[in-house]
C-alpha cells in the first residue's frame, strides 16, 4: 500500500517536472522512457483527468448535494466516484457486520436479515438512471443555469445489483389490507419515505452493489432501495427498516418537501416518477469550441417511464429538428447517449435536444412547463435546455 502511494506520488512529480520543463516542445516524451508505476491495489484515474463533482458552499455541508460532471461524461455509465450525491444528515459509516434490515408491520412473519443473508437471496442486476427530484430546480428561475453540471447534474446512471423487494416481502408474507411500505434509513436523520405496495411488488430492488462492487458509502452502503424511474429521494439509502402499513405516513420529505406547488396554491403529492429529459453535454455552457469545423454534438436522454424512443436536435434555436443517432442498447430507465456530427461554421447558433420516450411523451420546453405549473413548483423540472454557441466558439446558457 505504501509502495503504491509513493510510486503514485513519484509519477505526479515526474509529470509536473515534465510539464514545467516544456514537455510539449519535446514530442518524444509522450512515450515512456523509463519504467512506469507498478501494480496497485485499487485503481486511480490518470492524473491528467480533472472532472469532479460540484457542490454549493453551505454552512451545513452534511445536508446538500453534489453534481455529476455530465459535460465530461462519455457513454451511458457514471463512475461510482462521480455519481451525484444528495443526503440530509451526512454520510454514516456503517459496518455491514452490524447492520440489519428488519421487515415488520402488516406481515405474517416479521424478519430480520443481516447483509450477508440478503446476499444469499437470488439477485438481479439492472442498469438504471437515478435522478434527484430536485434536479434542474434552478431552471425554474428567470435566469437558467450556466452549465450542464450545475443545472442538470443531479442525475447519474449505474448498474445496481440486489434482491427484488417483492422476494423479501413474499418471504415475510404481506397481510391483506397493507398498501404501503414505510422505508427508513440508518443515517442521522433516519430518512423516511412511504412507497406504495404496488410499486414495491413490481420492480424495486434492495441494492447492495453498484458498478461491480459494493455500494459507495454516499450511495447507501451497505443497503439501499433502488426504485426504477422514481425520484432519488424515495430510493432510501442505508436502509434498515421496511414497515408494511395500510396508509402512507406523510413523512416530511413527501409532504413538506418534494411536493410541487402550483399557481393556485395546491401542491401535488407523491410525484414519484421522473419524466423524459435530455440535455446536450457537448458543446455545453462553459466550454469553448476550438474553431470552425466538424464536432460530435452529444448528450444524454432518459425517462422514468421507460425507453428513449428518439432524440431530436436543433442547431437553429428550435426552427428545425433532426434525429440524433442513439447508442444501443437503449435500456428502459437508463441513460441513452445520443450523437450527431455537426459542422460549426463560426456563426452564432442556439442548440438544444428534445427527448421522446416509449410512452410518446415529448420533453417540453421551459415555457410549456411554466404555463402549466408556474415557477414555484421547485421539483421535477424536465424542460429542454438551450445552449448558445457564439461565433468565437464560446458556449453559454441562452440568458447569460
Amino acid at each position, binding site marked *: 500500500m505504501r509502495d503504491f502511494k509513493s510510486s503514485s506520488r513519484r509519477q505526479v512529480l515526474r509529470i509536473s517536472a515534465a510539464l514545467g520543463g516544456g514537455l510539449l516542445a519535446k514530442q518524444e516524451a509522450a512515450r515512456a522512457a523509463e519504467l512506469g508505476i507498478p501494480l496497485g491495489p485499487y485503481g486511480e484515474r490518470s492524473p491528467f483527468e480533472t472532472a469532479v463533482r460540484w457542490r454549493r458552499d453551505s454552512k451545513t455541508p452534511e445536508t446538500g448535494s453534489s453534481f455529476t460532471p455530465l459535460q465530461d461524461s462519455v457513454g451511458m455509465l457514471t463512475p461510482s466516484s462521480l455519481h451525484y450525491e444528495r443526503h440530509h444528515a451526512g454520510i454514516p459509516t456503517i459496518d455491514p457486520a452490524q447492520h440489519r434490515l428488519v421487515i415488520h408491520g402488516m406481515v*405474517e412473519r416479521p424478519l430480520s436479515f443481516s447483509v450477508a*443473508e440478503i446476499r444469499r437471496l437470488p439477485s438481479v442486476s439492472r442498469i438504471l438512471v437515478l435522478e434527484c427530484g430536485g434536479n434542474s430546480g434552478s431552471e425554474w428561475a428567470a435566469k437558467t443555469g450556466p452549465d450542464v453540471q450545475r443545472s442538470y447534474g443531479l442525475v447519474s446512471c449505474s448498474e445496481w445489483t440486489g434482491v427484488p423487494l417483492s422476494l423479501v416481502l413474499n418471504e415475510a408474507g404481506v397481510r391483506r389490507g397493507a398498501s404501503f411500505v414505510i422505508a427508513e434509513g440508518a443515517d442521522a436523520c433516519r430518512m423516511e419515505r412511504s412507497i406504495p405496495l404496488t410499486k414495491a411488488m413490481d420492480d424495486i430492488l434492495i441494492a447492495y452493489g453498484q458498478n461491480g462492487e459494493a455500494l459507495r458509502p454516499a450511495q447507501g452502503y451497505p443497503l439501499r432501495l433502488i426504485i426504477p424511474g422514481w425520484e432519488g429521494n424515495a430510493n432510501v439509502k442505508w436502509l434498515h*427498516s421496511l*414497515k408494511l402499513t395500510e396508509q402512507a*405516513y406523510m413523512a416530511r420529505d413527501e*409532504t413538506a418537501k418534494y411536493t410541487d*406547488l402550483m399557481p393556485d396554491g395546491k401542491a401535488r*403529492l407523491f*410525484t414519484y416518477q421522473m419524466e423524459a429529459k435530455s440535455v446536450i453535454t457537448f458543446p455545453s455552457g462553459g466550454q469553448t469550441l476550438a474553431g470552425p469545423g466538424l464536432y460530435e454534438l452529444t448528450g444524454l436522454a432518459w425517462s422514468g417511464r421507460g425507453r428513449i424512443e428518439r432524440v431530436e436536435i436543433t442547431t437553429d434555436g428550435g426552427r428545425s429538428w433532426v434525429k440524433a443517432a442513439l447508442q444501443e442498447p437503449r435500456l428502459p430507465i437508463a441513460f441513452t447517449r445520443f450523437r450527431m456530427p455537426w459542422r460549426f461554421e463560426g456563426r452564432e447558433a442556439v442548440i438544444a435536444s428534445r427527448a421522446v420516450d416509449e410512452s410518446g411523451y415529448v420533453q417540453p420546453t421551459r415555457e*410549456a412547463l411554466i404555463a402549466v405549473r408556474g415557477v414555484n413548483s421547485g421539483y421535477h423540472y424536465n424542460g429542454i435546455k438551450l445552449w448558445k454557441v457564439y461565433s468565437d466558439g464560446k458556449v453559454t446558457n441562452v440568458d447569460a
Partner: protein
Amino acid sequence: MWTPSALLLLVTAAVAQSPKYGVGRPPTPDEIRGVSAAVAPDGTGLPEGSGTPAAGSEVFAAMCSRCHGEKAEGGVGPVLVGGQGTLATDKPLKTVGSFWPYATTVWDYVNRAMPFDHPGTLKPPQVYAVVAYILNINGIIGNDQVMDAKSLPKVKMPNRDGFVPDPRPDVGPTAKGKR
C-alpha cells in the same frame, strides 16, 4: 368431513404462504423499535408523554433557536412560522404553519432528525412540547393546549386540504385530457 380436494387446497394455501428461502430470523421487539421511528397521520407510533407550548418554548430556546432563530424566523435552519395565505401568491412562504398538512409529520421529523447536529436526543415529552410550541406560534393551537398521542393527530393543519394527486403527464401531446 374433509374431502381430499379440500385438504389439497388447504395444503396448497399453506405452501403458498410459507417462506421459500428460510433466510433471516424473527426480529426482537427492541430491534424493531431501534430501526423504526415512523409515526402515522392517525397517531400510530406515537409514544407516551405530553407537552405544552410553554414547556416547548424553553426547549426551543435551548435546542432550536440557534439555527431557526429566537422567534423561529429562520437562520441557518428554515423559518418555521408564518406564510399562511401566501401559497397562491408569487412569493409563497412554505412553513410548518402554512404548508405542512399533518401535525404528526412535525412530531415524526423533529423526533427523528432534530436538532440537526444531535438528532434523536430529544425525549418524547420534549418533542411533544416543542411541536406544541411551533403549532402555537403559528396560531394552530391555543396557549394551554396539551399535545400527546391522543390530541396531536386531531390537530387540523391549515393546509390539510392543500394537496392534490399527481396529474402528470400534464404537458405535451400525451397530457391527460389531450389523448
